[in-house]
């Protein structure tokens, strides 16, 4: 009797577990939009957005991050940090192999960090600057030795930010031009098959993936479609099932949202924290006086910009830091960032600072440069011209192509006011410091301190903020930093961009990671 009951129970539990396993179906091909076509597949050399859409499915990082910001073990199973924060021991996962069959070991981790990311990655030299050496006592342990504690480093281990690359395929070669670039070999759930330029990138399932039962999909294909309306049509027709980072323009997304089979979400961008802002030239031209910059910030109706140009997708900025940093207690609300714009107050500031209006009501003239990434930014420029006209600043708009614009702003500093957007990334040290530090005035380097703002007090605060392991002290430091910046405003933050992901509802399981589209899709499946 007992044995019959036991075997019934066993059968029942087996049945139940197999039923729940059917929740995620295996098989199928996911076609999704990659816009624009990536210039290369070497995600260890370039952080260009479109590369991030494809390569984190092939390469992996030590950790991933879920929507609450918690670390998910990927290539590292766990880590231990010493009390003083200067030694971090990573226990690596066993039984992981590269797509070419060779085993993944701590030697790969050491090589990736010391020889690749610290040397040629755009943000690596900053993220890992405190790492002086890595010890590898055995194949599955990597010990990072730091000069100073680096709390922000723990936020930069995703596959997008710091992909682990195979030492045996890069050693002894020039990392920037090695053949691995366009023939990637990683440890990820999908392996690279082919890249047909102008058409698609094809990734097939990694049959030997370290996690049992994953991935579910047989194949992922990233399609390149240059025209925005055609992208929307492809989504409507079900030819593509997923489009992130505004590959579908907002104006179409709000229309597609009404359909039952299409969903739109703003999730998946919390590790990116994009911020639209204005960079000012603080050394020459019309805007050297901080009072003028404060007046400009006061006059702008941020809510209007968000609602009219970006269809409501955005959050007005309230300080130099994104409000997403509230999660780590670093954000503090600051004055001079009104949501609705106060033209009267702005005019008062300018009057008080001594900038008189002439007969036509003009106090000063300047040229406004715009980031040449699309029509939305042209609209933003047009709005800016309008509102600046209200406070007596006459603006002329300038829209050039990317290389010309980059040269003008970052090589020649030949600008007065530049509308741009930056990723603030998961920690201010990674994405915010680069605007304000004196040591970030690097002529010829893109996307760093172009306003040439230099404040020794602030430099000291930035430095201590990056090294401070105590959370409460860090909060206080960053509050001071934001207060100074709210007054000096070499960069005026406009609003936090909310990128949209448009997806077909038969695609499931692509949203567990905070990295969103820059995630691995290993749990994604198609529910036809």
């Amino acid at each position, binding site marked *: 009797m007992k044995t019959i009951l036991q075997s019934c129970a066993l059968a029942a539990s087996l049945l139940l577990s197999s039923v729940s396993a059917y929740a995620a179906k295996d098989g199928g091909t996911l076609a999704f939009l990659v816009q624009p076509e990536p210039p290369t597949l070497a995600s260890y050399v370039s952080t260009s957005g479109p590369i991030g859409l494809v390569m984190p499915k092939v390469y992996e990082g030590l950790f991933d991050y879920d929507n609450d910001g918690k670390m998910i073990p990927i290539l590292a199973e766990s880590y231990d940090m010493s009390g003083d924060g200067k030694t971090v021991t990573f226990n690596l996962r066993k039984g992981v192999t590269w797509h070419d069959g060779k085993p993944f070991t701590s030697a790969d981790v050491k090589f990736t960090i010391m020889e690749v990311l610290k040397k040629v990655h755009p943000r690596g030299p900053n993220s890992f600057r405190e790492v002086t050496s890595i010890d590898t006592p055995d194949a599955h342990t990597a010990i990072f030795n730091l000069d100073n504690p680096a709390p922000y480093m723990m936020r930069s281990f995703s596959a997008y930010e710091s992909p682990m690359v195979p030492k045996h395929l890069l050693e002894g070669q020039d990392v920037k031009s090695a053949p691995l670039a366009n023939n990637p070999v990683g440890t990820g759930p999908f392996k690279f098959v082919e890249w047909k330029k*102008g058409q698609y990138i094809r990734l097939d399932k990694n049959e030997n993936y370290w996690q049992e039962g994953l991935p579910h999909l047989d194949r992922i294909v990233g*399609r390149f479609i240059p025209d925005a*309306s055609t992208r929307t049509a492809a989504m409507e027709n079900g*030819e593509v099932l997923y489009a992130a980072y505004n590959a579908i323009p907002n104006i179409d997304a709000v229309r597609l949202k009404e359909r039952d089979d299409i969903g739109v979400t703003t999730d998946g961008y919390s590790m990116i924290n994009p911020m639209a802002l204005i960079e000012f030239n603080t050394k020459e031209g019309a805007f050297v006086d901080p009072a003028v910059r404060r007046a400009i910030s006061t006059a702008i109706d941020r809510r209007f910009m968000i609602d009219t140009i970006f269809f409501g997708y955005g959050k007005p900025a309230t300080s130099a830091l994104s409000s997403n940093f509230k999660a780590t207690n670093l954000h503090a609300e600051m004055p001079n960032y009104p949501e609705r714009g106060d033209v009267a107050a702005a005019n008062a500031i300018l009057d008080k600072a001594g900038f008189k209006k002439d007969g036509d009501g003009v106090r000063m003239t300047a040229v406004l440069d715009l980031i040449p990434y699309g029509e939305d930014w042209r609209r933003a420029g047009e709005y800016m011209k309008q509102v600046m006209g209200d406070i007596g600043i006459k603006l002329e708009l300038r829209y050039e192509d990317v290389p010309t614009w*980059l040269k003008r702003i970052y090589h020649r500093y030949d600008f007065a006011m530049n509308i741009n957007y930056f990723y603030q990334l998961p920690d201010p040290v990674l994405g915010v410091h680069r605007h304000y530090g004196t040591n970030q005035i690097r002529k010829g*380097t*893109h996307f760093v301190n172009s306003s040439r703002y230099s404040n020794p007090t602030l430099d000291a605060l930035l430095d201590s903020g990056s090294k401070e392991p105590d959370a409460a002290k860090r909060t206080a430091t960053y509050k001071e930093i934001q207060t100074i910046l709210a007054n000096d405003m070499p960069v005026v933050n406009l609003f936090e961009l909310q990128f949209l992901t448009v997806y077909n509802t038969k695609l499931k399981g692509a949203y567990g990671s905070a990295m969103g589209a820059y995630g691995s899709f290993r749990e994604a499946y198609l529910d036809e």
Partner: protein
Amino acid sequence: MTRSSKIFKYVGKRLLQGIPIILAIVVINFFLLNLAEGDAVDVLAGEAGSATPEYMAQLRAKFGLDQPLPVQLMVYLKNVATLDLGYSFRHDMPVSDLIFDRFAATGLLMTSTIILAVGFGVLLGLLAAMRLNTWKDTVITVFALITYATPLFWVGLMMIVVFSLKLGWFPTSGMENVAAFYEGWDRVKDIAVHLVLPTITLSLFYLALYTRMMRASMLEQYGQDYVITARAKGLTERRITFVHVLRNALLPVVTMAGVQVGALIGGSVIVESVFAWPGLGMLAFESLFARDLNLLLGIFMLSSILVIAVNLVVDIIYCFLDPRIEVS
């Protein structure tokens, strides 16, 4: 000298004449392109998210962009002489591979467009001229006017909306169904289905031109003396039109078609963009923004070779159409 050997000599002479033209085009374009602000390294660095001046100097040395312009030109010409079109640093591939890859797609679109546009244009123009001032003529003329005046990208998008989204007869974009990975005949059928909408869109514009030109040309021929003579001889209208007038009326249309083949490589940027067709037009357009001069020069050279070749073919067709024209 027999006619065919005369033609061969002529062809040979024209090909030789073509070489200095191509050379001149390459040199002029080289200097023109270099006038643009910024270079490939700026673009690559900008896309990477950040790059130090040292890295950019390194890249420039690697690409040979730090050499003075005349030296760069000499190096390029020397390479071209050995059929080495250079390396595209943006795509990390030799230029010749890139171009031949995309040339098939462009060639397919171009050929089907010309066949459709010239074929239908001639037919419609013929019909309009034969049924002059009747309702058929009016309908055709108005149709030609509308298709000529409507912007290409709008026509393309409307085709997608109607035939792809609403009716579901054709796919929205691309050259093949990327999720299916067909082989053999299935692939041919798949590409053919994807070819329909882009071809119709592109050919509608040129069709209008050929229709109007053919109609005008036919009408001009009808007014010639030999037609009056033929009628006096008692030939049927049918014979006059199809055996005599048609061949003469075709001459201007053939000229126009020859000129447009050259334009088609560039003119299809819009259609390639709307339909995500992986052709040379989009490649040239993107490489301009990427300052990928090697690739651009390669495409320009291919373009000029094509134009010269087509002009040659048109001249030869002339002698077959009109026996009075001889190759000299």
